[in-house]
């Protein structure tokens, strides 16, 4: 049985490295994007094998799902920009796929030049070999599992990962929410959003499926959020699931985005950090330390923070997919 597991590990790792290699070696960007999604799904399997179901959930939903959607819509945007530029100039000849203008083709990257091969390979090999040598010489360390285990009673939740994320190291999690928000602020500062280049799919199939899937996604999201206090799950996974549902809704009607009014949308995307910060400041004032909770109130406060965070993450992910700030935000 142990031998089978080792075989599984070896095959899985070979698959992961192989897919990553194919992804980085491909000249067609669409192929690279699809391979990257595959890479993410294989990683999720590896996380399950390493007894990290929370990470597996997050990797599948965020690493593979949301990143995949972002990659594909980016490629579609690049394609439509290039098509516009070409049609805008009828007299420009089509680019020669082998000439110096090959770089200008939107979804194609020519094979790398030969002269970077030796230095890049040497550099990567040296770094990789040094890392592997170092890692092989490391003694098994205790980690912080015993310490976390000893304090679980005081954390307000029953799932160690959630306890670390929202209680013991809540500051990191707060900043993580802030980073999601900053990424959106950055994307919005680049300009107003333009139409998503995807064409609406004709026919009743997609809207029909969405009518079925979106309620299921919402139920699943809420379930994953609630489950986070005692089992794998939590705000980030739930936010990603709800965000994915939102992205599907956007895709079903790419031409008729609801013109989100500025103020409620702003409040929605900041709700996570705002609620978190308020609770944190209250903790400071009440003498539990910044981002600390009274032991009796830890569970409800954590749930409150998680609900707000889920909402903000879902909204932010959809907004990052749409890219560019909505017109209502400038009013």
């Amino acid at each position, binding site marked *: 049985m142990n031998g089978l597991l080792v075989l599984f590990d070896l095959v899985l790792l070979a698959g992961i490295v192989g897919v990553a290699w194919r992804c980085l070696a491909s000249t*067609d960007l669409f192929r690279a994007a699809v391979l990257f999604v595959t890479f993410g799904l294989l990683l999720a399997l590896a996380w399950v094998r390493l007894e990290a179901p929370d990470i597996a959930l997050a990797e599948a939903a965020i690493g593979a799902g949301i990143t995949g959607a972002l990659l594909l819509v980016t490629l579609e945007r690049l394609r439509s920009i290039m098509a516009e530029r070409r049609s805008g100039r009828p007299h420009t000849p089509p680019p020669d796929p082998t000439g110096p203008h090959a770089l200008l083709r939107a979804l194609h990257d020519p094979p790398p030049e030969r002269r970077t091969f030796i230095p890049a390979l040497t550099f990567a090999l040296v770094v990789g070999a040094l890392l592997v040598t170092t890692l092989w010489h490391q003694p098994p360390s205790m980690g912080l599992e015993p310490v976390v285990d000893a304090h679980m009673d005081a954390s307000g939740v029953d799932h160690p990962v959630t306890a670390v994320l929202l209680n013991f190291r809540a500051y990191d999690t707060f900043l993580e929410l802030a980073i999601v928000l900053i990424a959106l602020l950055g994307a919005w500062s680049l300009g107003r959003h333009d139409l998503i280049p995807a064409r609406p799919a004709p026919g009743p199939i*997609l809207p029909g499926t969405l009518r079925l899937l979106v309620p299921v996604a919402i139920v699943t999201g809420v379930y994953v959020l609630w489950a986070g206090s005692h089992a794998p799950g939590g705000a980030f996974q739930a936010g990603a699931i709800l965000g994915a549902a939102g992205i599907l809704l956007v895709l079903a009607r790419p031409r008729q985005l609801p013109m989100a009014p500025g103020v409620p949308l702003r409040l929605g995307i900041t709700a996570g950090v705002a609620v978190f910060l308020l609770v944190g400041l209250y903790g400071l004032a009440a003498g539990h330390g910044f981002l600390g909770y009274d032991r009796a109130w830890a569970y409800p406060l954590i749930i409150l923070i998680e609900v707000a965070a889920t909402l903000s993450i879902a909204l932010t992910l959809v907004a990052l997919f749409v890219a560019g700030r909505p017109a209502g935000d400038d009013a």
Partner: protein
Amino acid sequence: MIANALTGVLLLAGLVFFAAGTAGLLRFPDVYSRLHALTKADNVGLGLVVLGLMFQASGPADILKLLLIWLLVLAAGTTAAHMVAQRTWTHGEFESDR
């Protein structure tokens, strides 16, 4: 004991369908026949795998969850296949499909 044996047999049968679907995806000449091979084989394959796993479930809740997974994958797969086919019908095949 019987449950374990049933699980094993059903999983193996499911894997055969997956393998067939994958072979079809790789070997068939155009998008439509690839879709045909992939979706049919995968739906049946996943169904068999789910059925096999049901014998290992600890209660009705787990069985329902497994069933739900299968139904959702069916719905998503059908829609995705439909959209790929439709896009191919109106716009032709992708560069990378050839």
